[in-house]
């Protein structure tokens, strides 16, 4: 069977499964719609959190990014996993004990202020929208490349599926679909990785193959990769090339951002109690770590394979996948010296091949010559990753609008039934807007993703941590801190990415920190401003201090 038939089969099969789950898990109350009734078992919540978290970027782009960054790529690996330690130790158990539906709920109640709640609603919606557009776009790329349908049709199919289970089932539908999507995506990521590891190093486990000798007798994989890189004038793979402080700040921004992303935090509202919240954070990180420890191995395998397969090969003799990806412009060959050979080298004057980092995972099975069904599996996995994250983000947008904006801020009188209807309407509108941006992606989608993490790091993370660990923190301090952190981070990113991109280099960055890492400084600014303002303004009311005391204890107090 051809790749395309296999792909259709896998995609129909998995989509059928998601729709089946959606029908089975219709939500009938706001509690079911917002937090899946609050009775999701920790293991299931761990899987759902992993699928919720691992987006099209983790599945499609990350291994490719690392393949071109080498050791510095570790900031993605440590940043996006280390954040779970913060989440588990500093946020999840307390927020579960607090026992409401959303992040703005916590901010609004803890800081006894509608202004604080509305700032939180604004941050949550901006962060989630930025993020969801990338997911829809990822789904569109997979559809157009593997199913060879138009990108527009691809995005519409993706929207229809998400719409179906998110609008009907709310968090309940999303949770159980995410469990299924985790299984699909991890299987689709691991099977090719294991195949390639066996082919190249004879090791079944990619994490071990990563540090093993190659079967062709050319020594250890990483030494070979360093050797090839040096030979062709690329930066060496296992050494760092960015400044230490930049790597430090980017890692910290991704960690704080991970812990502050509302669609991840709300997953911990869905488990029955505090003990289960802690446990499910542990399960979530195990499920994430399976992919995240495999990804750097895939990067090294793919980079070595790519160099070996294409460098100094006659253009007329390239394999089929090369030509196919050329039609999408993700691989571009320009025969500068007209010798008919592909020169893939570090020197931009001589180099004749441009490879888009996004195709490293998608094209990897084809580059390694794996069977057709494995190639097709990757498409189903990438779709599962994109759709599961999109659904989680859409739910945040919907709860922010229906619950925090309407019910808690402006229309306290509405009934539960009305609130549920507003939640469904807002998720429907959010799907449409996300779909629009998936079809007409703003040219700067890749850049604005830095926004999501930087803004979450600079706004939510410090505000929530202080709300739990610093009883004296008051309304004035928290609001000033969030505005300072959010404002500073947004301005820094907007300046270097949109207003003056020419200045976006080490010399002009503050303390050598790139816009990706500036969220760390934003978080510090948030803390400093909040602390100072709180010092000079009255302590929070007694009943708020009681709330803080209550969430610090896990039991029925």
């Amino acid at each position, binding site marked *: 069977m051809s790749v395309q038939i296999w792909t259709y089969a896998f995609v129909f099969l998995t989509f059928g499964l998601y729709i089946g789950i959606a029908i089975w898990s219709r939500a009938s109350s706001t*509690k079911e719609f917002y937090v899946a009734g609050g009775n999701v078992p920790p293991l299931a919540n761990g899987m759902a959190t992993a699928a919720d978290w691992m987006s099209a970027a983790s599945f499609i782009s990350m291994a490719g990014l690392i393949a071109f960054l080498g050791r510095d790529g570790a900031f993605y690996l*440590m940043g996006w996993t280390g954040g779970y330690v*913060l989440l588990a130790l500093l946020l999840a158990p307390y927020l579960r004990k607090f026992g409401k539906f959303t992040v703005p709920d916590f901010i609004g109640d803890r800081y006894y202020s509608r202004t604080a709640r509305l700032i939180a609603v604004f941050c949550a919606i901006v962060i989630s929208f930025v993020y969801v557009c990338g997911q829809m776009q990822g789904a569109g790329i997979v559809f157009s490349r593997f199913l060879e349908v138009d990108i527009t049709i691809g995005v519409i199919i993706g929207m229809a599926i998400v719409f179906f289970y998110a609008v009907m089932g709310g968090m309940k539908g999303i949770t159980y679909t995410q469990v299924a999507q985790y299984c699909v995506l991890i299987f689709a990521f691991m099977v090719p990785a294991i195949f390639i590891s066996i082919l190249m190093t004879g090791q079944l486990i990619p994490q071990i193959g990563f540090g093993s000798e190659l079967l062709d007798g050319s020594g250890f994989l990483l030494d070979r990769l360093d050797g090839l890189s040096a030979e062709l004038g690329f930066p060496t793979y296992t050494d760092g090339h960015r400044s230490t402080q930049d*790597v430090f700040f980017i890692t910290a921004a991704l960690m704080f951002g991970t812990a502050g992303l509302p669609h991840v935090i709300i997953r911990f509202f869905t488990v029955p109690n505090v*003990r289960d919240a802690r446990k499910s*954070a542990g399960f979530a990180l195990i499920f994430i770590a399976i992919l995240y420890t495999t990804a750097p191995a895939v990067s090294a395998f793919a980079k070595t394979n790519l160099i070996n397969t294409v460098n100094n090969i006659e253009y007329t003799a390239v394999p089929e996948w090369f030509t196919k990806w050329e039609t999408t412009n993700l691989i571009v060959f320009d025969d500068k010296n007209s010798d008919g050979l592909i020169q893939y080298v570090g020197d931009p004057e001589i180099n004749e091949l441009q490879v888009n980092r996004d195709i490293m995972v998608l094209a990897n099975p084809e580059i390694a010559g794996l069977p057709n069904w494995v190639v097709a599996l990757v498409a189903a996995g990438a779709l599962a990753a994109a759709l599961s994250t999109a659904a989680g983000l859409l739910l945040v947008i919907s709860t922010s609008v229906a619950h925090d904006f309407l019910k808690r801020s402006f229309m306290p009188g509405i009934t539960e039934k009305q609130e549920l209807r507003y939640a469904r309407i807002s998720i429907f509108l959010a799907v449409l807007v996300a779909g629009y941006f998936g079809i007409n992606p703003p040219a700067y989608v890749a850049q604005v993703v830095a926004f999501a993490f930087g803004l979450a790091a600079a706004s939510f993370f410090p505000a929530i941590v202080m709300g739990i660990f610093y009883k004296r923190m008051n309304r004035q301090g928290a609001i000033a801190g969030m505005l300072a952190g959010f404002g500073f981070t947004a301005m820094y990113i907007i300046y270097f990415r949109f207003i003056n991109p020419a200045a976006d280099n080490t010399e002009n960055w503050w303390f050598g920190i790139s816009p990706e890492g500036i969220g760390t400084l934003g978080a510090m600014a948030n803390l400093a401003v909040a602390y100072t303002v709180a010092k000079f303004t009255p302590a929070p009311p007694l009943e708020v201090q009681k709330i803080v005391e209550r969430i610090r204890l*896990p039991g*029925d107090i």
Partner: protein
Amino acid sequence: MSDNSAQNYWKANIKIVLSLLSIWFFISFGCGILFVDALDNIRFGGFKLGFWIAQQGSIFVFVGLIFVYIHLMDKLDDKFKLESSNASDTDTGGDSE
């Protein structure tokens, strides 16, 4: 629970969190970033140690830290007889199917 034992519980909790977070910081920011070049002089198998910690080892440590935390906190809860598993802290409306 009296205010006093609540305070002791919170102190013990802070101590656990701080000691685990210092390991978290030492492994990721310390070994994975600040001292990575020095550690790269040590090799095991096909890996340089610093590179391995940055791309693999730190993640395993993170998983370990959360499970140590789960274990220590469960023990602490039992010690202070805070039966969180009764789920009585959630509102009972959540039993719908």
